[in-house]
């Protein structure tokens, strides 16, 4: 005991001396990066979020979903023009090819006959039915049941044919259906043993996939690796390995891209683009349906002025979106006119409200809002025109808020800026947007790009104590609009549906329920050593098997 203690003290002293000799740490060693290039074509992707779960059923997470083009498979993907590319199916069903029934409720999918899982097992209609069953099983805590909950039945009429019957005609199927198929031969036994798939091994380590790459490894918090799938039916990809590193910090991501330690990164802020371009990184701007906009709260808790169309339009006239786009967004995007800008359903005839403070003043005066007490903000019947303008804590949104606050004040509209950490929380959780406690919400969303459908503006979707889960946070209840949406959602004829959407766009624009700010595309930074890179908005890595490294 005593001896041990002396040893302890000796250690302390020895360590002291050692530290004295060793000195501090110095950055003298070179990591010898890129030493053995050529032998193995490995590229490093940087994701700012780690996967939750690799099972397509169990996550809505965008970063996980984009990897399905690597190792899993969609029945069809979308190319860089947002046109569908059949993958597991021979073609997309249409009324013309008989894939869609007369009443629009039944869809028939014919599968290719050469599709196989990475272990060599064929992919059959049974796998599709299994995917449906697993999604709907009450014991599985899947992330989303949409659109499978709209279905009446899914039947495998033969190994290569899947027949889906919806309860009602369902137009937005193309963008939502069959995004990731589960291998029945792997997961059926797991489900039988556990009663659910919630903690299946597959969720973390999907040994069997159907993409150009195979899952190899995922180390929590650190990285995931995918290696080329030699069994891929469209041929082996040109790259050998994709290494995905999870880097949560944006600034670190930029540093890694600049230093060449990362080959691909996304969600790049506009302000970082010049530095990256200077470092020789190629930038891709890809539209995926997101348009940043102001949602005006028409609900009971919302400011009374917002129920007036003139006031809503005045807000649109009062904000200078052109300069915002040129200065803050470095001119790399455009002003959004409608909710559906840059989707296949956009109405090109709608142009954004111009910046016209005089017009805004005129409209506000006409609506009876005037600054009677000289405090700088307009008022009417003793109510000040001061709006609670809330958004998330994202940097660019905070900046836009500050700019708009100043411009709105110039026309006599006061604003109280709010940045809520819990902006997207639900009604029951007291989320500020869901409970309607704000007057203006700024964010961008898309329902099912490239499909334009949204249930955001249905009257019965206004959240309340009785139905806390409604999604109509801005409480727009417009019977004309609702009728158009109802029509649209069951129009299986694409042209007719597009026409309906143009009507919807015009209505929302005229009423200024939603005021667009700017197109919010995904900005990708990709090392110039990567070639053949194409990116799509809906399924970014749709041609990943063609990507290659420049010599």
């Amino acid at each position, binding site marked *: 005991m005593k001896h041990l203690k002396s040893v302890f003290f000796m250690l302390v002293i020895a360590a002291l001396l050692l530290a004295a000799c060793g000195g501090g740490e110095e950055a003298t060693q070179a990591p010898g990066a890129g030493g053995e290039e050529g032998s193995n074509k490995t590229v490093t992707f940087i994701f700012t979020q780690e996967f939750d779960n690799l099972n397509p059923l169990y996550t809505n997470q965008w970063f996980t979903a984009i990897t399905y083009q690597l190792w899993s498979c969609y029945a069809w993907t979308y190319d860089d023009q947002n046109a569908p590319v059949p993958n597991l199916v021979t073609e997309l069903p249409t009324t013309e090819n008989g894939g869609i029934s007369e009443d629009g409720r039944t869809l028939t999918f014919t599968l290719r006959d050469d599709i196989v899982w990475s272990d060599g097992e064929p992919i059959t209609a049974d796998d599709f039915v299994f995917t449906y069953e697993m999604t709907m099983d009450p014991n599985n805590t899947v992330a989303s049941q949409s659109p499978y909950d709209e279905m009446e039945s899914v039947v495998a009429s033969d190994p290569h044919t899947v027949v889906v019957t919806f309860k009602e005609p369902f137009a937005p199927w193309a963008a939502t259906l069959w995004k990731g198929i589960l291998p029945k031969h792997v997961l059926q036994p797991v489900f039988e043993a556990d009663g659910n798939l919630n903690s299946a091994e597959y969720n973390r380590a999907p040994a069997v996939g159907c993409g150009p790459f195979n899952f190899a490894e995922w180390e929590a918090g650190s990285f995931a690796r995918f290696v080329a799938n030699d069994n891929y039916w469209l041929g082996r990809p040109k790259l050998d390995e994709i290494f995905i590193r999870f880097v949560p910090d944006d600034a670190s991501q930029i540093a890694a891209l600049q230093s060449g330690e990362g080959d691909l990164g996304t969600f790049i802020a506009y302000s970082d683009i010049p530095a990256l371009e200077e470092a020789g990184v190629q930038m891709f701007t890809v539209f995926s349906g997101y348009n940043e906009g102001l949602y005006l709260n028409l609900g009971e808790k919302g400011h009374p002025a917002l129920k007036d169309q003139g006031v809503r339009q005045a807000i649109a006239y009062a904000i200078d979106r052109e*300069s915002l786009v040129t200065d803050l967004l470095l001119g790399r995007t455009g002003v959004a006119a409608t909710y559906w800008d840059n989707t296949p359903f956009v109405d090109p005839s709608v142009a954004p409200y111009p910046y016209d403070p005089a017009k805004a003043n005129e409209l506000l005066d006409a609506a009876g809002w005037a600054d009677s007490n000289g405090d700088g903000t307009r008022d009417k019947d003793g109510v000040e025109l001061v709006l609670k303008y809330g958004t998330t804590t994202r940097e660019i949104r905070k900046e836009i*808020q500050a700019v708009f606050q100043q411009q709105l004040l110039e026309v006599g509209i006061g604003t109280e800026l*709010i940045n809520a950490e819990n902006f997207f929380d639900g009604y029951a959780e007291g989320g500020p947007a869901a409970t309607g406690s704000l007057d203006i919400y700024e964010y961008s969303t898309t329902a099912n790009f490239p499909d334009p459908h949204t249930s955001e503006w249905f009257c019965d979707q206004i959240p309340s104590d009785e139905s806390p889960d409604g999604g109509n946070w801005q409480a727009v209840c417009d019977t004309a609009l609702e009728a158009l949406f109802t029509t649209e959602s069951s129009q299986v004829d694409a042209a007719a549906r597009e026409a309906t959407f143009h009507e919807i766009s015009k209505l929302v624009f005229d009423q200024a329920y939603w005021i667009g700010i700017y197109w919010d595309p995904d900005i990708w930074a990709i090392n110039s050593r990567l070639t053949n890179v194409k990116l799509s908005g809906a399924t970014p890595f749709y041609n990943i098997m063609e990507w290659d490294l420049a010599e």
Partner: protein
Amino acid sequence: MSVSDQPVNMIAEIEAPSLSLSDLTWRRFKRHKMAIAGLVVLFLLIIYSFGGAFFVTEKYANFTDTKERLQAPNAKHPFGTDTIGRDLLARTIYGGQISIIIGITAAFVEVMIGIVIGAVAGYFGGKIDAVLMRFTEAMLNLPQLLLLIVMAKFFSSDIKNIELFGREFSGSVVVIIFIIGLTSWPYLARIVRAEFLSIKEREFILAARATGTPTWEIIFKHILPNSIAPIVVSATLGVAGAISLEAYVSFLGLGVRAPTATWGNMLENAYRYIESAYWMWFFPGMFIVLIVLSINFLGDGLRDALDPRSRTV
């Protein structure tokens, strides 16, 4: 780290000088040159933040001009401009006010809770002491930053702006003050309790009790003044701690919200521009380092002067 850490026993042998306590404190304090420097710098920073308000308006500090964004320091904008063209000089002035207010009030909250819990536990002892100290230990059982994050998240919903002195602040200022105060007090509570435990057994307290002095009077008039030294030191260092903590939570996106500027959230906003716009981080960063440094030196000096025997950093 104090002068008196040196052979006290030898000096103690020499008879006590006939100096008043405050004289003595001041003379001890004066010897600590860094503390004097800290006091001067702190004073200048306060003048800068609060005096600066007479030269630039808050409206100007929040005035955006996207045409003039990210300008390097120049004659019009001596500290340059930020990403939406706001003048950084004006923003450091108003940001400084909030940072300093956060520092002082958070330390005040900390001290109040610390004193009440420490005093009650130390004075009454027994079951009350056991319960309060359990609670204090529970707080100490977790890293402060993690606790702070949980609390910041808890209070982050539905923050209203507040108006005070004709100015509008983000309600998050109050939230930050309270959560920093609420997570910082346990150390102080333990110090106060220990002081109370020893002082309450002294003769003059026993005498006061014997003569029927009311309890609150004993606590606040007799015991508290005698344990003021460690409290003052803790409070001083608490101010610096609160200012740096605010910068930390800002980085994690849980700090003071726009449009209210603080040195902490200005530094956080500059984070992405570390290479491209040095002026965005240099000025708020320098102010944070200066104020934290000067308060720490001040606290160091105060400890030497008031409370020679303690030795924590």
